[in-house]
């Protein structure tokens, strides 16, 4: 993957497949310590201990369980390559929590890339799922909660072009503000 935002999109697709009704995505960055945490949490159907072990291993791919494949290993390698680490916790019927820790000053650190596009793809393609997006840089942060947007919009869908454009601009502006002094 050329951008970590693409890994996030890929991992979040697992949550979609797991029939989650709420998917939380957070990026927490500290530019002084060069730390980045990317977390993807869902309330989907979850996995057994065995399944969790399997998703860590790209060579144990069985196509019987949909959550098995290259997605998790690629994300894990992207983190470990920078001297970071990777965690996955899951409980059947409760959900799955994926956390990847990166060292942003490492030569092999993949740029975060276009997180806005990732969020827009997820939000507009999965209208029945709620998304909570949180992004923090040092002491500044913002969140976008589709539950709040849906409360305002009523029966106007989030994928209505003018609405999707507003969400795009909203996330972009808030992201830009994080880096302004």
């Amino acid at each position, binding site marked *: *993957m050329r951008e970590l935002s*693409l890994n996030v*999109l*890929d991992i979040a*697709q697992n949550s979609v*497949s797991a029939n989650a009704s709420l998917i939380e995505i957070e990026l927490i960055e500290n530019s002084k310590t060069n730390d980045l945490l990317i977390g993807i949490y869902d309330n989907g159907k979850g996995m057994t201990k065995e399944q969790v072990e399997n998703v860590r291993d790209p060579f144990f791919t069985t196509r019987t369980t*949909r959550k098995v*494949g*290259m*997605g998790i290993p*690629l994300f894990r390698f992207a983190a470990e390559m920078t001297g970071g680490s990777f965690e996955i916790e899951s409980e059947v019927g409760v959900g799955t929590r994926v956390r990847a820790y990166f060292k942003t000053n490492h030569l092999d650190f993949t740029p975060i890339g276009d997180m806005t*596009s*990732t969020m*827009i*793809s997820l939000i*507009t*393609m999965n209208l029945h799922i709620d998304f909570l997006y949180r992004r923090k840089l040092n002491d500044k942060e913002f969140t976008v909660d589709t539950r709040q*947007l849906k409360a*305002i*919009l*009523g*029966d*106007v869908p989030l*994928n*209505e*072009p*003018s*609405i*999707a454009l*507003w969400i795009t*601009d*909203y996330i972009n*502006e808030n992201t830009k503000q994080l880096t302004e002094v």
Partner: protein
Amino acid sequence: MKTLEELMALRDAAKANLTARDDSSEVTRIVVGMATCGIAAGARPIMAKFVEETAKRGLTNVTVAQTGCIGMCRFEPIAEVLVPGKEKVTYVQLTEEKVARIVADHIVNGVPVAEYTIGAVTE
């Protein structure tokens, strides 16, 4: 800065413009492969381009959706166009330029772009 008040205004404008969608049997479906293989090959901007092109043309009887791995990873990004009553057309190795032409020729004018299809590539 974008404000939530602005979103409320957009909502009211959108409500006024919401036209009754055609019967679901008449809806053309565009399905983009968004598994790991598709995403790595650039499916995200392809999907966005389909959404942009159909929105720009005000095509209310077209939906853009995503699916998992279609099983031909080396041809990603892949999209399938399903026009009611017609055979499914599978487009492969998509670029944003190809998407614009597919929407214009196939979706709007009903003529599939043969040279971008799986059949043309595997010949």
